[in-house]
């Protein structure tokens, strides 16, 4: 298994613990990643697509061309990136008119979209390529905690294009949590967005969405949140502090990117998975994980 690693913008600059833990988890699970500095911003489905789909599609096509030149499928750690690249790939592969138009633009950059590669998010690579049983084999310290999986939006939707898992009742992250010895719990509004993208235009509503989720996660008995998106991560980790300040409500739920949990279960120490950079303390959870410091 060999992939071109697409880091995106937010993970390597603000949440390097996600990058580090994903690199560790992938290498331990036998997934080789190839680096390139030629990838630019995907570009963001939240910032650029609403402004100009034409520019959005052309820059995405350019990134796809880079991977095509390397002859590698793309593995993205951020659902925003995978969403942009998968949708652009889908449009350009299936819509001749759009492809011709975009290739005309790409002539300026001496590139041509040919449609020879695939793009996957980390969750899909873990679930489909690595496989749950392989992950289970590597577990040294079973997690032993109740975990609320938050899938976020862009890994699953639009399902017509993403074609991954069941969009209404996704199971992939639940399966992986189970393999790690944790107990995935269902909760109300499991499919609700984290509200992060709304933060710029309407901070209060954005936090209200996160608060609704935190409430139902809390009442489900979950002790931590597992997710696969840097935007969701900030919304729940930093967001809990903002919710405490704004609404005077305390949840104290530690938040983990899925690869951090994999590393923890595979025997890494708590310091090594980078929780020192988190706002929410994970100490309570670590006490329950057998063997961890």
């Amino acid at each position: 298994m060999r992939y071109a690693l697409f880091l995106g913008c937010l993970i390597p600059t603000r949440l390097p613990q996600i990058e580090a833990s994903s690199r560790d988890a992938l290498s331990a699970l036998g997934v080789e990643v190839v680096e390139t500095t030629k990838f630019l911003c995907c570009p963001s489905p939240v910032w650029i697509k609403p402004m100009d789909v034409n520019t959005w599609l052309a820059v995405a096509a350019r990134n796809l061309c880079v991977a095509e030149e390397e002859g590698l499928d793309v593995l993205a750690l951020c659902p925003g990136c995978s969403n942009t690249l998968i949708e652009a790939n889908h449009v350009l592969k299936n819509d001749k008119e759009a492809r011709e138009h975009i290739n005309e633009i790409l002539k300026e950059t001496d590139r041509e979209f040919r449609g020879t590669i695939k793009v996957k998010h980390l969750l899909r690579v873990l679930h489909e390529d690595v496989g749950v049983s392989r992950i289970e084999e590597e577990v040294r310290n079973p997690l032993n905690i109740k975990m609320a999986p938050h899938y976020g939006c862009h890994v699953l939707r639009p399902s017509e294009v993403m074609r991954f898992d069941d969009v209404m009742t996704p199971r992939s992250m639940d399966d992986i949590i189970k393999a790690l010895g944790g107990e995935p719990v269902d909760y109300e509004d499991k499919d609700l967005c984290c509200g992060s993208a709304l933060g710029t235009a309407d901070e209060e509503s954005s936090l209200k969405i996160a608060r609704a989720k935190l409430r139902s996660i809390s009442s489900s008995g979950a002790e931590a949140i597992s997710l696969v998106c840097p935007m969701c991560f900030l919304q729940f980790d930093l967001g809990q502090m903002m919710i405490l300040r704004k609404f005077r409500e305390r949840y104290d739920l530690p938040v983990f990117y899925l690869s951090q949990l994999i590393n923890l279960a595979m025997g890494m120490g708590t310091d090594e998975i980078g929780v020192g950079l988190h706002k929410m303390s994970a100490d309570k959870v670590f006490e329950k994980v057998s063997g961890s410091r």
Partner: protein
Amino acid sequence: MPKKTLRNFAHPTYVEKPSVDGTLLKKISFREEIRSILGGERVSYCFQCGICTGVCPSARFSKVYNPRTIILRSLLGGREQVVEDKTLWLCAECHSCEEFCPQDVHIYSALTAIRNIATGEGNAPRPFFRNAKILADTGRIASMMGVNKLREKVGLRPLEELESSDVIKIMKVTGFDRFFEAGGAK
């Protein structure tokens, strides 16, 4: 410049179409304008059931965002009212509307097309223009302040600067660079 296609990806204010004698240009409706943008093609299929608003997290918590009425006004041709509407920018980007729509309107994409038109009128909120400029300048939408110190804490190498000239080249062809000259938002 690439030749103008039937679906006008560059979306100027009105799509121009030659009339029968090939000389006069005709202004088309707002509906046609939305349909001319990638993703907006199916907007006319909306029959106003309102499930988009029912499942919308932004509508549920903000109480002012209503994707159904935005589509209704658009279909009725209220271009000026719609492009000036500040609630356009309250989309949470979750794609739930698209998932539940019984008419398969691709409603998120239609709303995105409408926001594209509003952007063409300079109506995107300021942070959007600011981030687009950062993308053009650096190839990333991120601040590099203190980044390498943070990366060091988890044992990662410093982040390399990116060669972002391709973004500018693309924006020149798509006409996006005009926003930078005009200074962006109103």
